[in-house]
């Protein structure tokens, strides 16, 4: 039914209301049109229109209305298009909203699954652990059934991908919760000069000062005064609509608002997050119309909605009496007040309710509620002894459409737990309160067990001053706060009933007997009880249910709630959209200065750590394998150019430079002549090969050496650490980024290079393995004759800003010689033909130098090098495996093995392939493989298990496969 613009339940303007009556909003719920106002929330607008069934419960599909109206329950979980599982109690109402309740079959009114409520006897706690797995053939049916029946919301796979950038923020003091305590704390810390951030998850600040008025305007005036105090402090940032979702190490807090997540670093945290009002437990306490007192007060004061026409108040504290007065002021007919306490209320509120004619029944409870058409119509009140025993001899039935409950509170202490606070159960206050707080973490207000308004304000001020003083600000000494006289929570607000349906956890449809059954089955520890019964595991994560569950378990075990304890509260406090967590997504990449040259030549990129490198250069119309082969052929027969700028490069200076190299590498470098290079192998302390490179001596006290691409950062770091311990007189500089490098290789490389440098390139002046510094194409360069790909070649290192100029000059000069750029794939083939290993491919995390054929590079007669002692030990144990070159028989060419394929002998693993490729110059597939030592002799045949289990025969051959004498690298000219 659609409603006129003034819905029947909407009150005349209430001072301090959050709605803007000048802006109406049209929306739909379950296919029916309604109206609300700007500043409204869907459930308030619906309640004002007379809607009472806002959702269906998870298991029994019972009709549900408002319970906490504070996002501490999910009775009203709605979906709007692609936006799932919105909380109708707190989601801002927006024009055009088209809402449905989740988890219904046929709509919230006619939900067919409500039949499950009648089958409740067959669905005891934990039933799904025991049923439906036999007969096994039917299990898939049950699985599909339960997936359909137990979901919340329906995913829309076309939902757009959202990027919500995160940001960092900083503060001296973060205050969580802008109720009276939080505001007082922020004012106190702000006046002391601290940078304060005050957050509150609600749309406006004020907390209970806004809705708990006790029938007069004093609290609203205090709220306005505090707001003015905050506004007068420019160093206090007030952020409503912002949730503190989690507390992480060193005051690192996730703040979540509608737009983004902010990662705030504070130096002190004050938690003034308040407390969750807890429901009383009695039969049918989940009927629409039964709600927490604070829910009714929020409805009235924030949204000007009349919660009910005729209310009974069930209470055990002063808050219930205040609520009664607030309801009366809103035009609700109130009475009786059913006070669980035999002694009733001791404060002046008792007198005030008497003056306005509200009857009070002390020492009574509500035994059960009855509903008609899915809403409350009557409650049954009985005398009771405070221990859970109701006297059913003379029940009083009272007709009503509303029952408000105010029998207890549980602290919103999640952030305190995350910050490492210890909570203890206070018997007098019947609440967990902070027992030990870590330094820099403070609690104030209801979360700290303080309930009266004056004390809450004083407690907040105390916490703010303590925080400011801790951080070194000049603040007066805090005054101590007198403890409240009365408890706000009743120790046992639970009335059992033989017919059950007295709910403890509304998210999970758990009633009292479920706890008794779980404990009877042996799950009588709070952690086990939680997981077996699922209490506290629903979307509200126990906010409205954990305290009653603890009380039940305590009574079952004959212990105190403090002894039973609580489960851990983990982030996030409320659900956080994945789009907020995803943020932008940064994927750093590194490019050599020649990147655009490669792109222009048709490079196909591959990832090498963070770097992009050309895998090969695509020539239109040719397959990758052809391109790679042609690039390799160009190097062997003409000249090729490859960018090797991703190599790590390190400069080493100082009188002890040579000695340092001798300690960190396996070889000898102190005797390396100026102007020469030498291959270097690095081991870790366990003797495993971890890196290799080429060391060039540029001067007596100046070495320049390379590392592998992926090893650069780690090697530089570890060299720094070694010298932090050895204190040799050296300087180490990481030159990886600043130097670009390219390799000009092939029999015609000298001819190309000669044209753009005056350096004497003859074998006599510049021998194989030499290094020279000279200008090449006008660019200051370090030129090395290296042998990685096995042809005459020059590796040229130049400052990065001038690399492009050099590349262009080489390509231009090389054009006359059909120069061909070549990529990583071709380079891997070329080096394989020479039997050169690649660290990390032909070695792994356990490979010792002898296994990889590197014993020649290991000089054990040095006094010390990293890994030396371990090599000695390993050598005495004998060789476990040996890297050997192999060649496939011609017949095997059809099924070529791949890297990591295993060598199999007599049904057991005898090695594995590390590199393999077809070599044009050899005319066969060749590769490297680890083999059992007795298989590694030249000429030995062995079998490799290739794809599909095919056994391929290979034969060990001597390395290198190509140019064994190494003449190609040394040709003169």
């Amino acid at each position, binding site marked *: 039914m659609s409603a006129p613009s003034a819905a029947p339940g909407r009150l005349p303007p209430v001072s301090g209301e959050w709605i803007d009556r000048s802006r109406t909003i049209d929306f739909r719920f379950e296919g029916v049109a309604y109206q609300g106002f700007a500043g409204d929330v869907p459930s308030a607008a619906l309640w004002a229109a007379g809607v009472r069934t806002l959702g269906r419960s998870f298991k029994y599909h019972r009709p549900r209305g408002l319970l906490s109206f504070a996002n501490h329950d999910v009775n009203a979980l709605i979906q709007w298009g692609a936006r799932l599982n919105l909380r109708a109690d707190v989601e801002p109402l927006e024009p055009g909203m088209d809402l449905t309740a989740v988890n219904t079959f046929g709509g919230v009114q006619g939900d067919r699954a409500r039949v499950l409520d009648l089958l409740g006897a067959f669905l005891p706690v934990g039933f799904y652990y025991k049923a439906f797995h036999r007969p096994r053939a039917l299990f898939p049916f049950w699985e599909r059934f339960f997936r359909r029946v137990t979901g919340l919301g329906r995913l829309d796979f076309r939902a757009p991908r959202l990027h919500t*950038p*995160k*940001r*960092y*923020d*900083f503060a001296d003091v973060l205050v969580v919760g802008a109720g009276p305590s939080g505001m007082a704390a922020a004012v106190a810390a702000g006046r002391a000069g601290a940078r304060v951030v005050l957050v509150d998850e609600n749309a406006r600040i004020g907390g209970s000062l806004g809705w708990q008025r006790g029938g007069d305007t004093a609290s609203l005036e205090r709220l306005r005064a505090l707001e003015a105090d905050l506004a007068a402090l420019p160093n206090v940032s007030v952020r409503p609509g912002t949730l503190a979702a989690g507390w992480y190490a060193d005051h690192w807090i996730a703040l979540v608002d509608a737009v983004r997540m902010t*990662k705030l*670093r504070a130096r002190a945290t004050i938690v003034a997050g308040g407390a969750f009002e807890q429901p009383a437990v009695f039969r049918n306490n989940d009927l629409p119309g039964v709600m927490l007192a604070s829910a009714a007060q929020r409805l009235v004061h924030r949204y000007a909605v009349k919660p009910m026409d005729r209310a009974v108040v069930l209470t055990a504290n002063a808050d219930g009496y205040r609520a009664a007065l607030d309801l009366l002021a809103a035009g609700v007919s109130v009475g009786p007040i059913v006070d669980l306490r035999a002694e009733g209320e001791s404060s002046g509120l008792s007198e005030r309710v008497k003056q306005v004619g509200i009857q009070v029944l002390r020492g009574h409870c509500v035994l059960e509620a009855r509903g008609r058409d899915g809403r409350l119509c009557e409650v049954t009140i009985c005398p009771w002894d405070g221990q859970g025993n109701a006297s059913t001899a003379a029940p009083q039935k009272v007709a009503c459409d509303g029952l408000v409950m105010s029998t207890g509170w549980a602290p919103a202490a999640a952030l305190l737990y995350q910050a490492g606070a210890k909570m203890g159960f206070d018997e007098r206050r019947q609440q967990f309160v902070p027992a030990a707080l870590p330094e820099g973490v403070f609690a104030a207000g209801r979360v700290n067990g303080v309930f009266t308004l004056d004390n809450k304000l004083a407690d907040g001020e105390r916490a703010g001053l303590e925080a400011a003083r801790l951080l070194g600000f000049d603040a007066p000494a805090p005054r101590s706060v007198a403890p409240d006289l009365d408890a706000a929570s009743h120790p046992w607000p639970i009335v059992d009933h033989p017919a059950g349906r007295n709910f403890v956890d509304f998210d999970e449809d758990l009633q009292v007997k479920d706890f008794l059954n779980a404990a009877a089955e042996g799950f009588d520890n709070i952690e086990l009880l939680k997981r077996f019964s699922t209490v506290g595991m629903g979307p509200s994560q126990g906010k409205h249910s954990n305290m009653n569950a603890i009380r039940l378990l305590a009574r079952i075990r004959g212990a105190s709630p403090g002894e039973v304890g609580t489960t851990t509260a983990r982030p996030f406090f409320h659900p956080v959209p994945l789009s907020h967590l995803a943020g932008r997504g*940064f*994927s*750093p*990449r*590194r*490019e*050599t*200065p020649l*990147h*655009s040259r490669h*792109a222009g030549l048709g490079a196909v990129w591959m990832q090498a750590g963070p*770097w992009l490198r050309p895998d090969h250069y695509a020539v239109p119309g040719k397959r990758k394998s052809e391109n790679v082969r042609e690039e390799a052929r160009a190097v062997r027969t003409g000249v090729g150019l490859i960018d090797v*700028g991703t190599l790590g490069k390190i*400069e080493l*200076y*100082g009188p002890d430079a040579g000695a340092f190299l001798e300690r960190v590498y396996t070889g000898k470098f102190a005797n390396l002549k100026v102007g020469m290079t030498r291959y270097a192998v690095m081991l870790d302390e366990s003797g495993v090969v971890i890196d290799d490179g080429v060391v060039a001596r540029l*001067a007596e*006290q*100046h070495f320049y050496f390379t590392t592998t691409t992926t090893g650069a950062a780690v090697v530089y770091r570890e060299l720094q650490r070694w010298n932090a311990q050895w204190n040799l007189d050296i*300087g180490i*500089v990481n*030159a*990886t*980024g*600043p*130097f670009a490098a390219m390799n000009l290789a092939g029999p015609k490389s000298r001819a190309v290079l000669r044209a753009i440098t005056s350096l004497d390139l003859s074998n006599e002046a510049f021998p194989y393995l030499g290094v020279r510094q000279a200008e090449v194409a*006008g*660019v200051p360069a370090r030129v090395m004759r290296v042998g990685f790909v096995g042809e005459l070649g020059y590796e040229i290192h130049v*400052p*990065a*800003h*001038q690399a*492009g*100029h050099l590349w262009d000059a080489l390509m231009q000069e090389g054009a006359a010689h059909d120069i061909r750029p070549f990529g990583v794939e071709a380079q891997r083939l070329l080096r394989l033909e020479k039997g050169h290993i690649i660290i990390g491919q032909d070695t792994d995390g356990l490979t010792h130098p002898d296994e990889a054929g590197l014993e020649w590079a290991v000089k054990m007669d040095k006094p010390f090098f990293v890994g030396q002692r371990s090599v000695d030990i390993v050598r005495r144990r004998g060789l476990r495996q040996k890297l050997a070159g192999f060649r496939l028989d011609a017949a095997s060419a059809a099924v070529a093995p791949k890297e990591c394929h295993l060598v199999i002998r007599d049904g057991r693993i005898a090695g594995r392939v590390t590199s393999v490729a077809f070599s044009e110059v050899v005319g066969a597939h060749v590769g490297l493989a680890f083999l059992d030592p007795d298989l590694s002799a030249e000429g030995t045949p062995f079998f490799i298990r290739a794809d599909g289990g095919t056994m391929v025969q290979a034969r060990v051959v001597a390395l290198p496969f190509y140019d064994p004498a190494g003449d190609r690298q040394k040709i003169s000219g």
Partner: protein
Amino acid sequence: MRASPLRHVLAPLHPRLEVLHGMPVALHLRDEQPGWAGVLGVCDLSFLPRMGLKGPGAAAWLAERDIPVPAVPNRWEPLPGGGLVARLARSEFLVEDGFPGGPVTGLAAQLQVGPGVYPVPRQDCALALTGSALTELLVQTCNVDFVAQDAAARVVTLTSMVGVSVTVLRLPADGRHVVRLWCDGTMGPYLWETLTGIAGELGGGPVGLDSAFPDRSA
């Protein structure tokens, strides 16, 4: 003969180029908006001559050549004719010329390996960020509380920004907000793309040298 690490990411923006200190510099980008530099301009300053050195003798080596060396790590000093010298961590220094010129070329020529003085090659991507939305960009990319830093103390910060190691300092520039950034040249294109993307969201974008520094002499 020298090229900025950002040459190929700037090329599609149709820069108007002029060679300064041996490197083509984008004075103006065809599609840049007039207001960008005042909101969040990102400008390539890789062309400025710079040098690095480190070692126990580095501070003395610079002081002997009349360079005002900061006494404390992670501080910078302006050079008399424009430019700056920054002390990076304990005993490493960055010297950069100003727009009209400076001592770098001369110092670099003198720099030879000596006792405790080691050259540090610098082929940075160097950026300037300008504009009123600068703080917002910093809080979206960098977990350092720049607001709490004393602007008069001339602090240098070595930290991480969007996954890249960077050196950051804030220039006092007559009421304008200017931040200088240096990173390894090989990370330059990624840093540029990321920062100009964020700048675009905040109402700014890539700008040429004339827009970012209209008052520079030279």
